[in-house]
């Protein structure tokens, strides 16, 4: 009898009646404390709960309930570190500022924030911690500013208090760079604000002028308005618009074409023409459009700048991959926390089971099993023998180990991986948005058209010629052109977010405007990225006994078995013995129970019945691990443990194929496992590549990139470089934190299905943008020609001008950019 994972796991999960008192996540069966009102999903949450009550801060839970709508449910994590490095004089000198002798200030990065209740909790700390003067949290930057009195408390003691509450204070990689970025952000804000103020005022003046042309405005008033419009336009160009001229001058100097060259020429042309006609007292001006264009172009530039800056920040990510602190064993046998920068070759560091190795080095303990999935994507645990190399970013699973340092920091494999990510991001050419490319040429064309109109009709008299030129200038206002892209993009991104796809910027949508290749990672993307029971056969009663026994172990396989079958089991187990790496035995309900690999069964001198050998072979062929359950020295059940394939993966891949996308899988896992999973989700063998190094993944992405866009979907650190090299990197929400930083888009919940919405939605959004640009250009051309022929007078033109903007808005809002693809996919699934 073989049951698939859906039938086992679903009822087990539905039976979880206990939510963690602290974080609200379900409590694993193995940890349910029967009879207690408080339940905790992990030791971290329990510890934080206790410290909150000890400090009198339990108000936190009341606030957290109010904030539950925006709350990011995550278990609390308590490191119990000493944070001694925060008290070193060199740290204080570099990071802290001194207000006076009894007040030091520092800005630190903070991990573990979930919602507004966390803000309250942290900012309430000065009321109970003596010597802590003030705490200011900045949610947006994930930073916290701390003021404290060094005579009364040390920064390390403050960090320990925060740690006990589940927040880790980490030092900023480069405090000076942070300051510089803030200054640049501020200058952008001011620049855009000034440009917007000038543009709106000069629009108001311009409308007075348009109105006056028909009602024969007094020349005194007309000149007055014109002078004000010219002054405003000059101010806009000299102030916020200076940027374009600086770029254009640099382009002329270096003799390289730059899109600011036509922009600067057009802006200068419009303002100089306006100035000349104002000084000579006749003619019309076109200054308000120049100020409007400065504002719209600046907004586009700012968005672009923010995206480019992301590439530089990724280098700092090393802190999130590898712990900032290592536990170093001193000569006298004592263990101290030191920052990883101070490790030297030959130091011995200790790593507890489940913690992350901080450096590359040699294992100086007996053989242990390591989870290398973060670095390589391999789902199977790998055994590393004494004196063999271990890498930063891997985790020992079942026992604490000692590692002799060989490389630390940027020289480790994890560090080099990040360097490659930064390099790949920098190599990706910044995309010049369609509307930006067109804006400069558009302005030049309009000015040329206006000049041509004046000259062409000059023989009918100056007033007719000028009126027609003005009508042309007004009717071809670039507002619609400036609005077309941002509107469609904002609407597209908003719709995407509602459908579970978080997109980081407009250029992301533009990058995958045509159908290309989607490269998928396996572990955590096509599969759920965790160890779970995928199928079982044999005696169900034996499975329940096995689950009771496994409740006492923290090993991932034990947790998987306890989760799958433990819902009904309350039995306690006695005389539990764990055989490291092989399994566990003990007594449950007066029966001897052993759960483990074939090797454990042999060790215990239990015979394997014939029926298990074929079944175990087929489990191994699927790339999963067979686990035997023996009750009273007789094998009664067989469980397959592996990384379950996501339920929606096959359907999603079929849909993507029917949309016209090519698919590929690049997995760091063993080729056998990769092919087994690939076949299960409907990929052809030639589309599957197993055993890929992170470098090979980048190569696969680049190889498919020659003509069509490539989307890389992944979740782990081993996918980062490929995600950065691809046209769009897509991260799974539950993946590594660093993957979320590098990715251009993130699938928040709902597994893989939102991917359909992203790729099809992007195409539809680009379609909307093109349609918008076409409409506004067609409108402007038609309006321009009519104005040239004298069918449009300036006042009619001023009335018509918003019509094109409104049309563009209507198209952007009505385009079913994200909803249609999604709804269709939903329909076909149901």
């Amino acid at each position, binding site marked *: 009898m073989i049951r698939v994972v859906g039938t086992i796991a679903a009822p087990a999960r539905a039976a979880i009646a206990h939510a963690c008192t602290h974080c609200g996540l379900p409590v694993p069966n193995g940890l349910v404390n029967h009879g207690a009102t408080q339940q905790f999903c992990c030791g971290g949450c329990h510890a934080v709960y206790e410290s909150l009550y000890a400090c009198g801060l339990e108000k936190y839970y009341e606030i957290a309930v109010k904030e539950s709508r925006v709350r990011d449910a995550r278990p609390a994590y308590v490191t119990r570190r000493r944070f001694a490095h925060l008290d070193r004089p060199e740290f204080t000198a570099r990071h802290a500022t001194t207000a006076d002798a009894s007040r030091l200030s520092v800005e630190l990065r903070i991990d573990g924030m979930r919602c507004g209740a966390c803000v309250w909790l942290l900012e309430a700390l000065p009321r109970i911690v003596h010597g802590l003067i003030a705490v200011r949290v900045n949610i947006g930057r994930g930073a916290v500013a701390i003021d404290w009195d060094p005579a009364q408390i040390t920064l390390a003691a403050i960090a320990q208090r925060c740690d006990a509450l589940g927040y880790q204070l980490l030092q900023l990689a480069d405090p000076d760079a942070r300051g510089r970025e803030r200054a640049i952000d*501020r200058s952008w804000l*001011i620049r855009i604000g000034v440009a917007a103020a000038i543009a709106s005022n000069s629009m108001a003046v311009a409308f007075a002028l348009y109105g006056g042309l028909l009602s024969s405005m007094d020349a005194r008033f007309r000149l007055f308005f014109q002078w004000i419009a010219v002054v405003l336009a000059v101010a806009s160009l000299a102030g916020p618009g200076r940027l374009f001229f600086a770029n254009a001058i640099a382009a002329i100097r270096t003799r390289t074409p730059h899109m600011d060259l036509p922009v600067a020429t057009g802006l200068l042309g419009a303002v100089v023409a306006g100035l000349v006609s104002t000084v000579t007292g006749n003619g019309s001006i076109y200054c308000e459009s120049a100020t409007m264009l400065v504002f719209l172009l600046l907004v586009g530039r700012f968005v672009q700048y923010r995206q480019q800056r992301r590439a530089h920040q990724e280098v700092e990510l090393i802190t999130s991959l590898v712990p900032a602190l290592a536990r170093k064993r001193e000569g006298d046998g004592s263990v101290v926390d030191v920052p990883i920068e101070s490790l030297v070759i030959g130091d011995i560091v200790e790593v507890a089971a489940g913690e992350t190795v901080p450096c590359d080095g040699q294992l100086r303990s007996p053989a242990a099993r390591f989870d290398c999935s973060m670095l390589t994507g391999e789902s199977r645990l790998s055994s590393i023998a004494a004196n063999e190399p271990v890498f930063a970013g891997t985790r020992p699973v079942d026992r604490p180990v000692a590692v002799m340092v060989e490389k630390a920091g940027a020289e480790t494999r994890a560090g080099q991986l990040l360097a490659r990510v930064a390099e790949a991001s920098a190599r990706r050419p910044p995309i010049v948005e369609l509307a930006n490319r067109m804006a400069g040429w558009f302005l030049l064309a309009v000015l040329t058209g206006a000049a041509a109109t004046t000259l062409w009709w000059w023989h009918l008299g100056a007033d007719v010629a000028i009126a027609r030129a003005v009508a042309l200038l007004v009717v071809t206002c670039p507002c619609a052109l400036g609005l077309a892209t941002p509107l469609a993009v904002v609407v597209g991104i908003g719709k995407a977010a509602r459908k579970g796809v978080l997109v980081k910027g407009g250029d992301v949508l533009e990058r995958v405007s045509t159908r290309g290749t989607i490269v998928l990672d396996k572990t955590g993307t096509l599969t759920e990225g965790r160890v779970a029971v995928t199928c079982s056969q044999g005696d169900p009663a034996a499975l329940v006994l096995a689950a009771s026994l496994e409740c006492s172990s923290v090993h991932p396989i034990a947790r998987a078995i306890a989760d799958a079958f433990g819902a009904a089991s309350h039995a306690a187990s006695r005389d539990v013995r764990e055989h490291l790496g092989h399994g566990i035995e003990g007594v449950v309900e007066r029966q001897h129970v052993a759960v483990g690999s074939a090797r454990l069964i042999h060790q215990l001198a239990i015979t394997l019945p014939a029926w298990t050998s074929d079944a175990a072979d087929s489990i191994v062929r699927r790339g999963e691990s067979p686990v035997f359950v023996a009750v009273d020295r007789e094998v009664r059940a067989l469980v397959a443990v592996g990384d379950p394939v996501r339920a929606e993966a096959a359907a999603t891949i079929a849909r993507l194929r029917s949309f016209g996308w090519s698919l590929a899988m690049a997995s760091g896992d063993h080729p056998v496992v990769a092919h087994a999973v690939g076949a299960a989700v409907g990929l052809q063998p030639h589309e599957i590549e197993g055993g890929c190094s992170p470098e090979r993944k980048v190569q696969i992405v680049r190889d498919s990139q020659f003509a069509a866009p490539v989307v890389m979907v992944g979740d782990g650190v081993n996918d980062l470089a490929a995600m950065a090299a691809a046209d769009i990197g897509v991260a799974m929400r539950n993946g590594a934190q660093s993957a979320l930083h590098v990715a251009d888009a993130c699938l928040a919940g709902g597994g893989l299905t939102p991917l359909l919405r992203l790729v099809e939605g992007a195409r539809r959004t680009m379609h909307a943008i093109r349609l918008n640009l076409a409409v506004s250009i067609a409108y402007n051309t038609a309006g321009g020609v009519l104005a040239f022929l004298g069918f449009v007078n300036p006042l009619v033109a001023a009335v018509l001008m918003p019509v094109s903007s409104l049309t563009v808005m209507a198209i952007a809002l009505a385009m079913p950019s994200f909803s249609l693809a999604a709804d269709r996919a939903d329909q076909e699934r149901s």
Partner: protein
Amino acid sequence: MEAIFIALPVALLVAGAALAAFVWAASRDQFDDLDTPPRRVLLDDEPLRK
């Protein structure tokens, strides 16, 4: 209509004052963090258990 010769410069002066206030606020980090202060306002007064 001659009032416009005074009214328009005055209007521009007012707009300029608003702009100056904006620049002043921006350069003093008033727009640096738009997420935390609105929450802080709501949360600050919660009394602690003694």
